[in-house]
């Protein structure tokens, strides 16, 4: 009887061993596919690498009070837009001048003071960086990459150890692999996915999705060796990623629908949507008119009572002041080669928008940072939106070309007697909840710098910034 029992016990042990190996094989395979581990495991794994990261990047940096509150508010809004509620997110500023940001499984997001300072107070760019890193955590890119990297090794070690399972060893190996991978990135596919998911997170949180494109533009000018940031350095297809992010901006706009609201229709028939009204300088300094013949813009300066010509030798079709009077949008050239130029309020061209289509009409966004254009050409009729300070263009309406107007919530465009409306994503500035008064200091008088241009010497006006 005892022998029988012994035999049964051996059989049971063999059965358990086989079952365990099978389970482990199954687990390891599934780690590679989707890492179906709980948030607690991710947190422990991520936490195991935190001290090493802090050591590598000079420890934690405490930002000046109001900058810290601002960064924390951007991060809080992003975290509020995430889907994974089982993750506790934390943000650490690293004491390094490098331009770098990364994340660890379990909710640990890091950004260097160098990158925070280079971003300045542009919340859209900060949201783009942090959104990208949060997206890695949301999609479990880190933990998946670790198990993809160590999968077979772990399987063998765990197979040998069989019944011991050795959680501590598993963490030791995983943590070591994590540290090796964190500086290399989580893989091409993961980076591409984090781009778009991060951009969507930023838009959901009320930031301008164009921040991701503008950030890439900023970093294009930086020598690659100075860019340790894995999301921008390691991939030769940065331009492809920029294009994907730019094209994706249209997806945050609503599909155009016919406008039936009588109040809106009445508003569309008046005010600044009329070409003559939008030609009035909102600050009432300049009176600009199109010359009856010839080129350029005739400008009368009411402050100095002087008449001058802007954009001399350029054929101007139409122009419109931005609502705040900061910029002047000008349609130049003969149809169908019309182009949109953006000038500052002194008539200097700051951007030439190059498209291969004729521009039928244009209008400013209420914030004065975007211009909508209805265009037509061989590729059809489109309503495009572009930015004043970035080379970004995307389509928000197709098959429609006529009058275009931008009221509060989005762009309206006319086609065959009907107005259509496409809503823009809502963008909100950063407001610090429960604020603390600022402490300002007097800015010292800035000396102008001397610039020699041939035989002339020019003094540059010093730029003033908030203390």
């Amino acid at each position, binding site marked *: 009887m005892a022998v029988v029992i012994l035999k049964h016990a051996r059989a049971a042990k063999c059965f358990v061993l086989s079952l365990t190996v099978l389970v482990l094989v199954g687990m390891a395979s599934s780690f590679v596919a989707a890492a179906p581990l709980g948030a607690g495991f991710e947190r422990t794994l991520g936490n195991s690498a935190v001290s090493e990261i802090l050591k590598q990047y000079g420890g934690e940096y*405490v*930002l*000046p*009070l109001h900058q*810290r509150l601002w960064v924390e508010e951007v991060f809080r809004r992003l975290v509020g837009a995430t889907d994974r509620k089982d993750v506790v997110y934390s943000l650490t500023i690293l004491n390094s001048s490098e331009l770098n940001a990364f994340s660890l499984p379990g909710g640990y997001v890091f950004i260097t003071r160098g990158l925070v300072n280079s971003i300045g107070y542009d919340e859209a760019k900060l949201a783009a960086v942090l959104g990208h890193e949060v997206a890695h955590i949301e999609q479990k890119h880190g933990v998946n990459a670790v198990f993809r990297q160590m999968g077979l090794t772990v399987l063998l070690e765990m197979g040998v150890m069989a019944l011991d399972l050795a959680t501590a060893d598993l963490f030791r190996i995983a943590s070591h692999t994590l540290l090796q991978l964190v500086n290399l990135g989580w893989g091409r596919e993961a980076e591409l996915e984090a781009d778009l998911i991060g951009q969507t997170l930023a838009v959901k949180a009320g930031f301008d999705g164009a921040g991701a494109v503008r950030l890439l533009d900023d970093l294009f000018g930086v020598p690659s060796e100075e860019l340790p940031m894995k999301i921008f350095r390691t991939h030769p297809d940065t331009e492809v990623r920029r294009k994907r992010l730019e094209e994706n901006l249209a997806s945050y706009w609503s599909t155009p629908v016919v406008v039936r609201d009588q109040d809106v229709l009445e508003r569309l028939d008046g005010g600044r949507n009329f070409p003559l009204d939008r030609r009035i300088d909102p600050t009432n300094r300049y009176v600009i008119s199109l010359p009856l013949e010839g080129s350029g813009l005739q400008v009368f300066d009411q402050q100095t009572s002087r008449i001058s010509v802007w954009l001399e030798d350029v054929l101007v079709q139409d122009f419109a002041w931005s609502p705040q009077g900061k910029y002047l949008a000008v349609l130049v050239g003969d149809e169908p080669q019309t182009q949109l130029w953006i000038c500052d309020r002194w008539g200097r061209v700051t951007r030439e928008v190059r498209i291969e289509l004729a521009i039928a009409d244009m209008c400013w966004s209420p914030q004065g940072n975007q211009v909508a254009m209805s265009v037509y050409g061989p590729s059809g009729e489109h309503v495009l939106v572009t930015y004043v300070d970035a080379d970004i263009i995307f389509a928000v309406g197709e098959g429609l070309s006529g009058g275009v107007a931008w009221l509060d919530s989005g762009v309206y465009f006319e086609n065959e007697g009907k107005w259509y409306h496409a809503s823009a994503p809502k963008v909100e500035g950063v*407001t*610090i*909840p*429960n*604020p*603390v*008064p*600022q*402490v*300002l*200091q*007097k*800015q010292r008088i800035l000396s102008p710098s001397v610039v020699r241009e041939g035989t002339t010497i020019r003094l540059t006006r010093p730029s*003033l910034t*908030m*203390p």
Partner: protein
Amino acid sequence: MSLKKLKLGSLITVLFVVLVSRVGQAFVFTDPTELYSTTIWDQWVYQSHHSNDQITVFYGEGDYDLLYFESLGRVSDGSLEAWAQRALRLYEEPGGLKDFQLEMPLTVIDVAGQTGLSCGYSYLDERDNQLWEYRVFLILPGGRGFSIALSTGDAWLEDGSPLEDILRQWRWLF
């Protein structure tokens, strides 16, 4: 006329001239968002580059003389005192003000009918110059925070608050 009376007369004349000239050299500043108005001395120059809907900045004559009024968002600390104390604590903590020293404790004052808390403190700027700042915390109807601050490089705190004129002329426009 005795010498004593002559001296007293001269002193009164000098004080009168100073007061008249001071009144003559002040202007009424009305906040563009129509929240308040007050009288500002002519020596203080409005800084349009540094001012916006939330903050209004004036530069004084001294190297560090600065006057600014800040309109903040909703305060949720529960009380004016709790808010002021939290702000001072944050100023003192890392990331706040270097070598922060509270020189004048929080004191209840009245600013045109609104209860405020005033205090004075000193700290070092980035170049290790010692600056003194006198600040008034207010919570306006609706729970929005408001702050009036005057900073300088001179230790004027011992002589009382130079903000008195500004606060005396202060009017809320709501």
